């Protein structure tokens, strides 16, 4: 049975925890709005870009001269998994879910006898995968210094990946991130970026036959690397919004739980206070009777 003083201390400490989680929730809500705006304003570019690329890819097709980024290396032996997570924790299952998806994919590929390499973006994903797959890591990109994710960050990551591709370090690259659905739902997603696939993009041709200047393949060769950057950029933004959304609901839960705990502790505190008073009364009365 904890003493009155212990209970009082515990109530105080839970109260200050609640204050912290409440503040974190409000910060996350503000950041979420900004992240959503950023994701929103990046959408027209990505959509149009993909539509044009899909049209181009369809017209160049599988011809021998098609760029490697589109056609692939002709093998899928070496797989690169780019795991994009947050730099910070305390956001519910956000990081864990992405890591889980990546782990499942890595195991599946290894069971098939493929070579798996892992590139992590964001500290939390690296920490989560380090123990099991530490020997597969080929690099890490740190975004903890970045306050606001810009296109330049995506370009840097894309450049890193493309250099590795040019040096034939891998055949297929897949990115892992969480797609933002709403505040409570974020869907961990795997998306193949090299070789580029446009299966779920509708080719926007509108019946028009375009003149290409310079030639189709030159344009494609120019655009494909940009396409990688664009896809990474939208994944980063989706991830940013998802992270804040996940943190917001996690902190909301934490605040509510702290509230419940305070209620419970307060009841316990009052009961033992009453017990003490009753005890004292009994002692006084029985003392008086004994006289």
């Amino acid at each position, binding site marked *: 049975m904890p003493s009155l003083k212990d209970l009082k201390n515990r109530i105080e400490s839970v109260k200050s925890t609640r204050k912290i989680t409440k503040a974190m929730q409000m910060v996350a809500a503000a950041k979420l709005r900004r992240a959503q705006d950023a994701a929103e304003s*990046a959408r027209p570019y990505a959509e149009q870009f993909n539509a044009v690329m899909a049209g181009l890819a369809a017209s160049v097709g599988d011809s021998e001269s098609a760029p490697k980024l589109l056609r692939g290396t002709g093998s899928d032996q070496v797989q690169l998994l780019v795991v994009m997570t947050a730099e910070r924790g305390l956001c519910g299952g956000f990081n864990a879910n992405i890591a889980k998806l990546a782990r499942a994919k890595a195991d599946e590929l290894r069971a098939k006898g493929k070579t798996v390499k892992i590139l992590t973006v964001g500290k939390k994903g690296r920490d989560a995968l380090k123990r099991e797959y530490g020997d597969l890591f080929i690099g890490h990109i740190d975004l903890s210094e970045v306050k606001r994710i810009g296109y330049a960050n995506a370009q840097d990551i894309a450049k890193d990946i493309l250099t590795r591709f040019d040096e034939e370090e891998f055949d297929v690259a897949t990115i892992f991130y969480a797609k933002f659905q709403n505040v409570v739902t974020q869907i961990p997603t795997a998306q193949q970026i090299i070789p580029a696939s446009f299966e779920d993009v509708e080719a926007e041709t509108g019946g028009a036959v375009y*003149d290409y200047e310079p030639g189709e393949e030159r344009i494609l060769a120019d655009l494909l690397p940009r396409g990688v950057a664009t896809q990474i950029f939208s994944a980063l933004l989706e991830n940013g919004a998802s992270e804040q959304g996940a943190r917001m609901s996690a902190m909301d839960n934490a605040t509510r739980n702290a509230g419940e705990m305070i209620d419970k502790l307060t009841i316990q505190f009052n009961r033992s206070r009453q017990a003490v008073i009753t005890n004292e009364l009994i002692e006084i009365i029985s003392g008086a009777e004994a006289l």
Partner: protein
Amino acid sequence: MANTMQFDLVSPERSLASLQVTAVQIPGAEGDMTAMPDHSPTITTLRPGILKVEAPEGTSEYLVTGGFAQINGDSLSVLAEKAIPVGEMTRAQLDELIAEARASLEAAKEQEPHSLVDDAAKLLADMEALGTHMSL
């Protein structure tokens, strides 16, 4: 014949302009071109240069560093890597871009293949010409 068309200028981070225009001068990779309503459908890549937009309300200019333009008969979309209204451009910003282009030239030189070096050299030259053009 329609005398205006829909024009959209978008960068990866945001949409910069969306309005009705009469003509747009595009710095295409193989030379400047002006797109007017009912232009034949074309897709062209951009080189660093100035995008001149002529709208009934007046003209505006944007500096673009690359990307591509998609011309349809009744609409024109420019997807630029980086687009800055010319009025907001400063010497310092241009210097930064030039420095970047120079760095990529150096990087390309080390890696040999000649087309890459030429591309990077052209990028640098375009970037420098831009400064002269804007008389900064």
